[in-house]
């Protein structure tokens, strides 16, 4: 049943928020500490548990996937309800933080790729290309 999926998602979200709040109190800060992240891990654990029990039905999945599919539209609504006028007067923080963050991450990617590539990998190109086809669904 679809509602089972929605209910599972709701329970995970509530438990995550609760644990995040409890963690916040325990750590002496007045905030929710990682509640959404905790809820995501609970949901991933729930999915594995249901799969092992063979209870991961189409309806149940639908109840969760519907909300996952609505996540970008909800983010659009969130963006449309922020105090952008005040943010714009805040100056070029956005441009600098965004562009700088991308530049640093690109540099780190280049370094990580260079240092992580074992010499053997060069011979495995064909195998990797095949794996890529398998994952993208173009081959068995």
């Amino acid at each position, binding site marked *: 049943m679809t509602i089972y999926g929605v209910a599972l998602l709701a329970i995970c979200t509530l438990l995550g928020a609760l644990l*995040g709040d409890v963690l916040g109190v325990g750590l002496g800060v007045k905030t929710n500490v990682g509640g959404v992240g905790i809820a995501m891990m609970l949901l991933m654990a729930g999915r594995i548990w249901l799969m092992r029990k063979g209870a991961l039905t189409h309806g149940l999945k639908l109840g969760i996937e519907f909300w996952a599919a609505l996540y970008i539209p909800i983010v659009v609504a*969130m963006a449309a309800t922020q105090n952008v*006028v005040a943010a714009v007067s805040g100056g070029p923080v956005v441009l600098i933080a965004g562009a700088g963050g991308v530049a640093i991450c690109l540099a780190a990617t280049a370094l990580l790729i260079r240092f992580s590539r074992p010499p053997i990998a060069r011979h495995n190109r064909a195998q990797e290309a095949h794996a890529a086809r398998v994952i993208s669904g173009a081959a068995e």
Partner: protein
Amino acid sequence: MNEIIPRLFNEHGLVASFALVGIVMWISYQISKHLTFGRIHGSAIAIVLGLILAYFGGLATGGKTGIADIPLFAGMGLLGGAMLRDFAIVATAFEVDVAEAKKAGLLGAIALALGTVLPFIFGAGVAFAFGYTDSVSITTIGAGAITYIVGPVTGSALGASSPVMALSIATGVFKAVLVMTGTPFVARSIGLNDARSAMAFGGLMGTVSGVTGGLAATDPKLVPYGALTATFHSGLGCLVAPSLLYFAVRAIMGA
């Protein structure tokens, strides 16, 4: 008519906002397809349009909640509020396959850790340089430099102000657009040409729409590998930004 329509929108606030966001999404995907030839993902354009709507809503009313200040669109406040947002973000974790994740292995883990911490430090530094001295604002803007999801999730967990949240979202969206459009140009020079490099790239750059868009424009075979690590990025960010990273900022700033 002048009375009926506002009342209709008032009574059906949430339903009206579904319709409005649907129209915004449709316009955005048309712009993406016909004006940018798919180079910039429709979702990024939609978020930018959302921010623009919020700007004009704020100008028109002088209020603080963007387009929701216009009574006709008050329902947007509910659809875009923290409750449904967190609910939908948690739902995205359902798509993550843990067995797939193990394939990314150590390289993916290192890339994810760096991809969370590096942009955060930079974004937090920029926020400080622009005069933000409270830990909550600095953390929220730094989190926005991770992705446009991590920013507002962190901001509302910590209780950041709306202007800071807007800055945080805009930073994340700008990052996503840069990754989408810039990747094909830098792919060769950073060595982005196989599965391993795509996984490192996905973990470091984060933003799923940016990574998949950028890799698709570079080499479509690399998309699933980049997406594999990138999907963990927002989850990891939502977990550590309002906790470990916030505590680190508090320890440095003293409050």
